[in-house]
């Protein structure tokens, strides 16, 4: 009580000094904290090797949280824009041969489907080709930043599911696809997999898919970046856990949805 009314009012210069001291002090402390925070993040440890790998731990957490947020906007009614066939590229860009190098033996090529029950189906290309064909001409987008209008034809994944009575398996949260040599593999969230524009493509520009583009059948999933469009499907499986994913093991976002 006593000290209070003994205090004199500060002069303008004293006020200036005091306010400068406080604000610059706080500014310096916060700048230092921001710098330390950045140093911590930049040098934060890599995540443990699992379904995903190769990213800083906190950044992977952020990618996964961001996925959850943006999945709220996903809808089967949101379709990728389509183009007339004339717009499709004649020279379809080829970026990678991982898992799909060389020429496969197309005789008796079998697509393996591993069901949740453990049952394994072997589906021939003739069985797939016998079903109604769906064509799509759309802008294929690569995570690198390039894109190209491409023309693909094949069996809609959702038609495939229904024809082979796999609807029960779509209760699972994920679909995994693997090349025959197991060199490349992707995991897809179920909503994206059963999106009406997801196709098991066996034609490119109206002709059978060439070897380097994933003959005899590959995945075309326009709601994802190119990295999820696995070439040469060897087997398909269903899972409630995230299936292994080639690029997610190399620092990329698991979801990679568009």
């Amino acid at each position, binding site marked *: 009580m006593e000290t209070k009314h003994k205090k004199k009012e500060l002069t303008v210069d004293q006020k200036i000094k005091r306010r400068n001291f406080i*604000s610059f002090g706080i*500014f310096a402390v916060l700048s230092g904290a921001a710098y330390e925070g950045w140093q911590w993040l930049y040098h934060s440890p890599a995540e443990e090797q699992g379904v995903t790998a190769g990213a800083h731990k*906190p950044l992977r957490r*952020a990618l996964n949280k961001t996925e959850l947020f943006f999945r709220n906007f996903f809808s089967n009614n949101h379709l990728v824009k389509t183009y007339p066939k004339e717009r499709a590229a004649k020279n379809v860009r080829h970026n990678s041969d991982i898992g799909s190098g060389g020429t496969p033996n197309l005789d008796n090529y079998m697509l393996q489907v591993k069901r949740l029950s453990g049952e394994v189906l072997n589906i021939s290309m003739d069985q797939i080709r016998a079903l109604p064909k769906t064509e799509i001409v759309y802008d294929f987008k690569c995570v690198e930043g390039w*894109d190209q209008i491409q023309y693909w034809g094949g069996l809609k994944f959702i038609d495939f599911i229904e024809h082979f009575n796999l609807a029960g398996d779509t209760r699972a949260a994920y679909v995994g696809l693997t090349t025959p040599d197991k060199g490349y593999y992707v995991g897809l969230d179920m909503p994206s997999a059963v999106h009406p524009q997801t196709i098991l493509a066996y034609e490119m520009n109206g002709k059978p898919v060439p070897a380097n583009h994933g003959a005899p059948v590959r995945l075309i999933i326009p709601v994802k970046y190119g990295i999820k469009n696995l070439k040469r499907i060897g087997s398909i499986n269903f899972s409630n856990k995230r299936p292994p994913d080639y690029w997610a093991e190399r620092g990329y976002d698991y979801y990679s949805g568009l």
Partner: protein
Amino acid sequence: MKRIKEKHSLLMRWTHWVNFPILTVMIWSGMLIYWANDEYSLSIFGATIFNFFPDGFYTALNIPHRLAEGMAFHFLFMWIFAINGLVYVLYTLISGAWRELLPNRHSFKEAWLVLLHDLHIRKMAPPQKKYNAAQRIAYTAIIVMGFGSLITGLAIYKPVQFYYLTWLCGGYHTARIIHFILTIGYVLFFLVHVIQVILAGWNNFRSVISGFEIVNDKPKPATQSTPAKDGN
């Protein structure tokens, strides 16, 4: 008489200084992404005069082969960039600070006079309130640009789910180009901004940290007071 004059509110200072490092990280991580498909160049009459970016630039900044890392940083800091910008805009709207920031019908003519004055071609600057006409235009433009980065960014990020944004931006390619040009715009803004801050001097700079300016009132001004010195 020396006197303290309040200038920038705490929230304006806060969002300003948060934005600076966040935008730096966004530009840097954006370059890590852009490198993977660095297709833009500047050309006049078909002759390329500048490639974005030269190899030396990339190596000096250690940019090559870091796409995944760049995306991971970009998609974390985008949240802070967006939220910080939103807080600032909401604040200016609610507090009424927008009145001092938005250009009015005189601003475009006056901004020219401000420019001539700053280039020492004209002696007198037009009268102003907190911000001069050129500042009003610049500080409003930078917010519009920030909003543009957000929208074009979303248009590239989710072109299927946010197809209407992609359409609004003129398609995927145009959205990516606008996103890139806006970034170049920030760098140019930053350069001019820093030069102006240096020229405006300490009193002005301090006000963005401590919030106040020191005004020396002349005893009994005979006529109308002269306009305040340009602040930045």
